[in-house]
């Protein structure tokens, strides 16, 4: 019994980190109405940025946040501004921006393989990791410390984004654009700049996720793909565009992955996750907790 509780705690912790990795995906979808296939690659870029920030300066892993967040924001902002915006402008009248999905796929391929070209295929982990193997002991249960910090980070990030969306002028402009592009434009909001900012925020949350992942995750050029597919599943489970939905979807996936192996071969849990995903898509495509405009 205690095993199951331990597994559940670990599942919730890891799941909230999954939710954090998917949060940017849901923000970008909420505003641009586009599924960003390059989101795993943004996470991968964040991981490499964190890795180099820590390796070159020797700071504590979590202090890298202060470098990675602004760097990723700028990266996302200009990625959208230079590569994706022209397509939006060209396809103004098209309702379903399939072309944009395709372009983000192109970005995914370019980023992953450029990283492979530049840094090689080897697995890396940060040197002199101060969080290596740190555990909290609760009775006879063990809980990984970096995962617990990741859980806290995920909650803080979700709250911070919620506050930003509700209380700041930029947040309101973003919400307005996500509800109705044309009306927002008529109110004097530059929708393309909002897209840039939303993409920047999405990339920045991928950077935050990268910092929380780096103490216990190896990095390699295709690391993003693992989180990419998982991210799609999480955001659809929780409802595309919903921040809290991303967290809950992440926790569901995390729980299935950690508790499932008690009852079956570990690799089967993956099949269950896909099955659940398809089921939600068929039955309730707006997601388990999705509302139309949920920020």
């Amino acid at each position, binding site marked *: 019994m205690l095993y199951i509780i331990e597994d559940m705690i670990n599942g919730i912790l890891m799941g909230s980190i999954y939710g954090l990795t998917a949060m940017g995906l849901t923000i970008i979808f909420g505003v641009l109405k586009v599924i960003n296939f390059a989101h795993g690659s943004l996470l991968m870029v964040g991981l490499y940025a964190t890795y180099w920030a820590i390796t070159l300066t020797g700071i504590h892993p979590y202090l890298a946040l202060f470098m990675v967040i602004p760097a990723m924001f700028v990266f996302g902002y200009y990625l959208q501004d230079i590569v994706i915006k022209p397509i939006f402008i060209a396809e103004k009248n098209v309702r379903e921006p399939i072309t944009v*999905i395709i372009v983000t796929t192109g970005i995914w391929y370019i980023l992953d393989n450029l990283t492979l070209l530049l840094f090689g295929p080897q697995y890396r982990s940060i040197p002199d990791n101060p969080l290596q193997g740190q555990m909290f002991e609760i009775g006879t249960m063990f809980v990984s410390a970096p995962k617990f910090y990741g859980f806290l980070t995920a909650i803080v990030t979700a709250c911070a984004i919620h506050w930003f969306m509700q209380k700041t002028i930029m947040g309101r402009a973003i919400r307005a654009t996500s509800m109705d592009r044309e009306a927002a434009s008529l109110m004097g909001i530059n929708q393309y700049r909002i897209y840039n900012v939303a993409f920047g925020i999405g990339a920045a949350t991928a950077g935050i996720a990268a910092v929380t992942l780096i103490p216990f995750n190896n990095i390699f050029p295709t690391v993003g793909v693992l989180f990419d597919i998982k991210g799609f599943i999480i955001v659809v489970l929780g409802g595309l565009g919903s921040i809290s939905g991303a967290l809950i979807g992440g926790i569901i996936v995390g729980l299935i992955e950690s508790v499932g192996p008690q009852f079956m071969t570990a690799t089967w849990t*993956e099949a269950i996750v896909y099955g659940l995903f398809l089921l939600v898509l068929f039955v309730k495509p707006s997601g388990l907790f999705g509302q139309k405009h949920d920020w």
Partner: protein
Amino acid sequence: MNHQHINKIMLAGVLVIAFALPLVVRSATYLHILVLLFFYAYLTTSWNIVGGFAGVLPLGHAAFVGIGAYTSTILSLQYGISPWLGMLVGGVLATIVGVIISLPTLKMRGAYFALATIAFAEGIRVMVENIDYIGPLKLNGPRGLQIPPLQTGLEHFMFASKEPYYYIILIMLLAVMLMTYLISRAKLGYYLMAGGEEPEAAMALGVNVARAKLIAMAISSFLTALAGTFYAQFSLYIHPKSIISLDMSFEIAFIALIGGRGSIFGPILGALLLRPVGDFCRIYFGDTLPGLHLVIFGLVLIFVMLYQPRGIQEPISRAYQALLNRLAPTPSPRTVKLGEIRS
């Protein structure tokens, strides 16, 4: 000599070159590259029936390749049934699966449909990786199946040299291209295109868009599964990670999008452009610059989407049209004077 004559001569010329190529290309490596080029052109043309004409974005076609490959391989390994027959069984099986998966998904909006097909294909891959046996059928999990080259000959779909494979895939490609041509000229093609561009308008005019898309998906999954059998017999080894991979699904979609979605020659043009680039990068820069070809794919994809959203077939067909006009100028339409009509 008018345009139609020139078109026929050009087509005949291309066909003669295609059929005579193995007489000139003696290197097994180059033949292998050509076979895979036609294999991908075939897959993309099959994908195009639903991904191009119907205006949706399926990203899980590798699942059908896998179904075709596994069905015929299991039937021939365990029951000694000729792969040719297994090919048809695999095709029928893939059609059933394709229809089942399409019934709920084709109603979804673009992005959701793409995600659903990805999840479906990945789900199939995970299941095949985890299953060693379905009843008496041996899938062999992640280790995959090896086809021992015991008997060669047409009836066993197995040959010692690459030339027969070349001709088989070439004929398959030509057949599927002819088929897409016929579909694009038939009612189904018009329904699909109307439904892909303006679903509401098409439905208002009484077009059963959902049914047309379902038929397209059935045809497409059947044809895709046939190529799976070909791949199994050509490479003699299949395993889930290679044959039901996301990379294959995406490469099919990339070739179609770069070549030109919904056009008959788009897939072959896309394959002619991308496959050689990929192969030569792998041969010459595989050690020093791994992944270079995928960077090039991504760049080409983005530039094509930015500047030629209808694919490279558009500038090419425009250039061809200009050439036609140069060779056989069409007489400019004669201005008719009022007096001529009266008399």
